[in-house]
């Protein structure tokens, strides 16, 4: 009976994992991300590069609704830099005292302006396909970081027997292999200030770092807190076990 608990727990994890894996017709490329594991951290320079790649490549179609400019301080930017980023955008505000809406430069408290005013406009601008918001994308897909990396690096010529309709593209990592998004990265699409390589897989990897952060800005803090909490609890387990053995010592012989 002792192994019963671990058995039921193991089975539950197995079951929950096996259905979370989802559609299994594609094989994902696996990378060792710095943020995986209990001591994982987010690489700030990779996130900054990913932020640049997002702005120069993705942002023309994909919104980032849950991120405000002020959040960029997590990436290591100073207040002045954040104000400068925000000021590059025009944001609608109002109504003013005359009851008119007006445009003003962005401030740190603003969220990233979306490229399209609404879903219908986004679809109309993309041949009927809706470019999803990217804030949560790495959490909204099974094995999100690997999936995103694979998706961005798996555009290929379709195999001979695969019909690719107009406005669709062949992608080995996309479920069903036909995706409406044209290949976004070809290599050297951005020139990084820090001179980091800008080939397809490097840009894809940088974007994964950035979008893992946007999906969960508290990731690093969560893991750091977790390590401390685990140390505390393991000590508590040891001490309460000792106390239990001491209290029970006059009832049962060990």
């Amino acid at each position, binding site marked *: 009976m002792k192994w*019963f608990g671990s058995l*039921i727990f193991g089975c539950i994890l197995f079951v929950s994992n096996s*259905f979370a894996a989802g559609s299994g017709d594609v094989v994902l490329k696996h990378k060792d991300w710095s943020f995986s594991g209990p001591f994982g951290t987010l690489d700030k320079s990779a996130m900054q590069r990913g932020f640049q790649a997002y702005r120069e490549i993705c942002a023309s179609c994909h919104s980032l609704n849950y991120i405000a400019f002020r959040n960029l301080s997590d990436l290591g930017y100073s207040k002045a830099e954040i104000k400068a980023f925000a000021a590059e955008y025009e944001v609608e505000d109002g109504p003013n005292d005359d009851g008119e809406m007006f445009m003003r430069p962005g401030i740190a408290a603003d969220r990233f302006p979306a490229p399209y005013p609404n879903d219908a406009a986004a679809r109309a601008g993309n041949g009927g396909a809706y470019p999803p918001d990217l804030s949560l994308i790495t959490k909204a897909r099974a094995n999100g970081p690997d999936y995103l990396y694979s998706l961005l690096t798996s555009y290929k010529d379709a195999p001979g027997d695969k019909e690719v309709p107009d406005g669709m593209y062949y992608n080995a990592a996309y*479920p069903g292999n036909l995706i409406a998004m044209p290949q976004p990265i070809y290599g050297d699409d951005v020139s990084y200030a820090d001179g980091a390589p800008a080939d397809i897989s490097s840009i894809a990897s940088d974007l994964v770092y950035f979008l893992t952060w946007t999906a969960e800005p508290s990731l690093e803090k969560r893991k750091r807190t977790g390590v401390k909490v685990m140390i505390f*609890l393991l000590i508590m387990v040891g001490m309460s076990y000792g106390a239990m053995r001491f209290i029970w010592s006059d009832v049962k012989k060990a």
Partner: protein
Amino acid sequence: MSADKFSNPVVRWIDHRLPIFSFMDHELNEYPTPKNLNYFWNFGSLAGVSLVIMIVTGIVLAMSYTPHVDYAFQSVERIMRDVNHGWLLRYIHMNGASFFFIVVFIHIFRGLYYGSYKAPRELLWILGVLILLLMMATAFMGYVLPWGQMSFWGATVITNLFSAIPFIGDSIVTFLWGGFSVDNPTLNRFFALHYLMPFLIVGVVILHLVALHRFGSNNPIGIDPSGPQDTVPFHPYYTIKDFFGLSVFLTLFAAAIFFFPNFMGHPDNYIPANPMQTPAHIVPEWYFLPFYAILRAVPDKLGGVLAMFGAIAVLFILPWLDRSPIRSGNFRPIFKIFFWVFFADCIALGYLGGMPAEGIYVVLSRVATAWYFLHFLVILPLLSVIETPKPLPQSLSKSVLGGSAMAGAASAVKEKV
């Protein structure tokens, strides 16, 4: 019930007028508990702690949550990003539901193996099954609140089940929805009920405890304690043991919260609900999968719904299905085998509930569902007649301590307290 046992005069004054201290002393301090309980008896107190954790985190989350179809998803993300430690509160609550069910399932299987549902604890068991039902309703409605894709489609699938009821089914579904589809009124009422039901659970838990304290805990041997030499006072012996169990539980719980918080969730629930787009596979949370498998195993809609509710309903009458006077499975050689087969069957149902309803999975689901009911309705009643149990020990002390030299030790225990 004399107030003299308290030395503090304020306590004495209060206790004379309102005997809460006597009550606590009687139910927690003196409360005689079999001394041979194993770690499976930890899960009752763990379930209680889980309930408290869920209520506390839930109330705080409700302060920042907006139950409206246009804002619910955003408000959850706001909790995750902008509310101080909101990510921690939400991950505790979200994983807390899973851990609550893990604990309660182990608690139930413990009751099944050691015959804790048998006389005189039938009502204790029935109240427990009622708690399970309330928990399932609460968890289902809670999962709808973030208003992600699985929230929306799970709510649609499950509420639609009621349309299987003949004649009035469709009216019931419209009544549940507050409209003609799962929409804002549905979300609003689910939030209201999700806030209410935990307190109903607290009420039933109190009754569960009253019923428990009437005859005390069952134990792994399954025979009643024959006297003080077979029991220890609840405090400090089981308070410390429960505390140790709690420490282990919290360690596992914290590992999930801090290192794999989304492992037991579904990625689709990070996509905002979209009534125009159905997810590829609609799956409920893992703790509903066995019941979901039973639902889908029956080819008829009404039949499936009846089978699913029947899977719980059969637990209510379990004390009268298993007529064997022997409580503990340790002394029932054939029952023991069937218990583990049944356990494997439940795990299989959980696995099958997560698989698509096609091909071999449908066949296996039907076999596993049939076995589930066969176990309760045929095997248990039959075993109570044909099985020859092993001889029971004469008392708990003898089986625990392997001798009669315990009179001295038992009195030592009493002196210490």
